[in-house]
């Protein structure tokens, strides 16, 4: 736990601010957010979708006609197995991403090593389409995801410290959820005040 709290304190504040601005911009232009990862990171991706699509608006569910449009990729196990079996495991994210991606969107890629080939394939697709990438990675700062991402949320640890990296990634997801929940609460309150 000491490791987790140390890395939480050292979390890259400026890169998290960058991520907040990218998410704010996507919201303003009504774009979508695609989130993906492998194993535990895929669980964080799914959790993220739920928090961004619902939790951030929880205090006023009817008051925000425009909401985040977050999707975990692939959105079904069937697509995952079809891409993995028929084409190759490196295409399980890039394959489904290609169906949806538009320039107004944004990508959140989660990979503790930052080097998973399937993650990098999808991030390269996003970069080729000029779609901004928020990259959550760990271990060494010289990982591929960290190099490619626009917002570089890196938790630098010893190689293989998955539990530490994933715990901090999860906490950052909750930090962003709280930030936007507060933001939308504040917006509701201000809009009511402005009407008066």
């Amino acid at each position, binding site marked *: 736990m000491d490791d987790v709290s140390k890395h939480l304190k050292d979390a890259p504040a400026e890169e998290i601010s*960058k991520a907040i601005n990218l998410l704010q911009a996507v919201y303003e232009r009504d774009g979508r957010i695609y989130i993906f990862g492998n194993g535990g990171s895929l669980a964080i991706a799914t959790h993220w979708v739920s928090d961004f699509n619902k939790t951030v608006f929880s205090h006023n569910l009817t008051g925000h006609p425009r909401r985040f449009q977050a999707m975990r990729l692939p959105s079904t196990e069937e697509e995952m197995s079809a891409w993995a079996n028929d084409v190759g495991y490196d295409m399980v994210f890039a394959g489904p991403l290609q169906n949806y991606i538009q320039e107004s969107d944004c990508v959140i890629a989660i990979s503790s090593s930052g080097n998973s080939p399937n993650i990098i394939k999808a991030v390269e697709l996003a970069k*080729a389409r000029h779609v901004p990438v928020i990259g959550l990675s760990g271990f060494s700062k010289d990982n591929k995801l960290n190099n490619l991402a626009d917002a570089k949320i890196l938790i630098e640890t010893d190689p293989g410290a998955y539990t530490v990296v994933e715990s901090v990634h999860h906490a950052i997801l909750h930090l962003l959820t709280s930030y936007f929940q507060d933001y939308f609460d504040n917006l509701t309150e*201000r809009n009511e005040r402005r009407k008066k």
Partner: protein
Amino acid sequence: MIVTRAPLRISFVGGGTDIKEFYEKYPGRVISSTIDKYVYTVINYGHLLDEIVVKYSETESVKELKDIKHGRFREALRKLNIDGTGLEIASFADLPGKTGLGSSSSFSTALLKALHAHLDKPVTKQVLTELACELEIDILKEPIGKQDQYATAFGGLNVFQFNTDGTVDIEPVYIDYKVRADLEDHTILFFTGTTRSASSVLSEQKESMADKFATYKEMSDSVPAFKEALQNGDFKELATMLNAGWEKKKTLAGKISNDVLDTLYTTGIDSGAWGGKVLGAGGGGCLFFIAPPDAHKSIVQALEEKATESGLKGFKKIDFDFTQSGTDILFNSSPYHA
């Protein structure tokens, strides 16, 4: 059909130091933020159309590109080697032009972004900005700076530094939504009902650049302190700096202010505003104030009365929020686009 949009911007301090005659000798700096008012470009494919149609305040239908009167439409198409036959290209805006909110560069980036989408060519914010600068400054020879093209292409709250070698550093200013919301609650924006062409004011400024160099230098150097006060949420300090910037700016060219603008500005200050400025190159357009929220009502009332007295029929308060997004594609129905 393709739809793009580019935001307008409020430039706080440093405007004018983004002109080449200055930044070639000393780094220029500007701090600005985009707002939720936009210029839009729509491209439609007229399948039976054998001419080029461009729509703005006028509609032009021409057989050949060279016959388009509107310089930006013509030169943007030419620059990207687009013949244009069969295209209907239209521009819309949330606010009129020449109001000091940088709309002419928003027009350029929205148009260039849409034309790239038409070509199926993604374009980076940096390249889009450079193309807009080339279009306006090099090709159309407008005597303007580079701040607006950067502001509208990148979006958000930024400090731009215009280096002597021609490169530009973009430094996003990170503030959380609470400071941003607080800033919005402290600001008031008015359209004065008069417009001006930035070019006429800026041409005069360019001519006197050498004499006024020290003033420009002070304006550029005031940007970091403004950024810091903004991050600290020190709105009174921001207002004082806006005032100082505006007083300096007025000395740069005779056309920047006039009696009506001075009267409106003084009225704002007298009715409780901490500070303010005329936005953009000056000479007309929009007035911007920073004031304690509880004074807003009396400021609006006093200015509306003064505007009526001065015969300013179009005078109006503009509600706005600061934004984060830059020049974006909102819609692209082309089935094969990348």
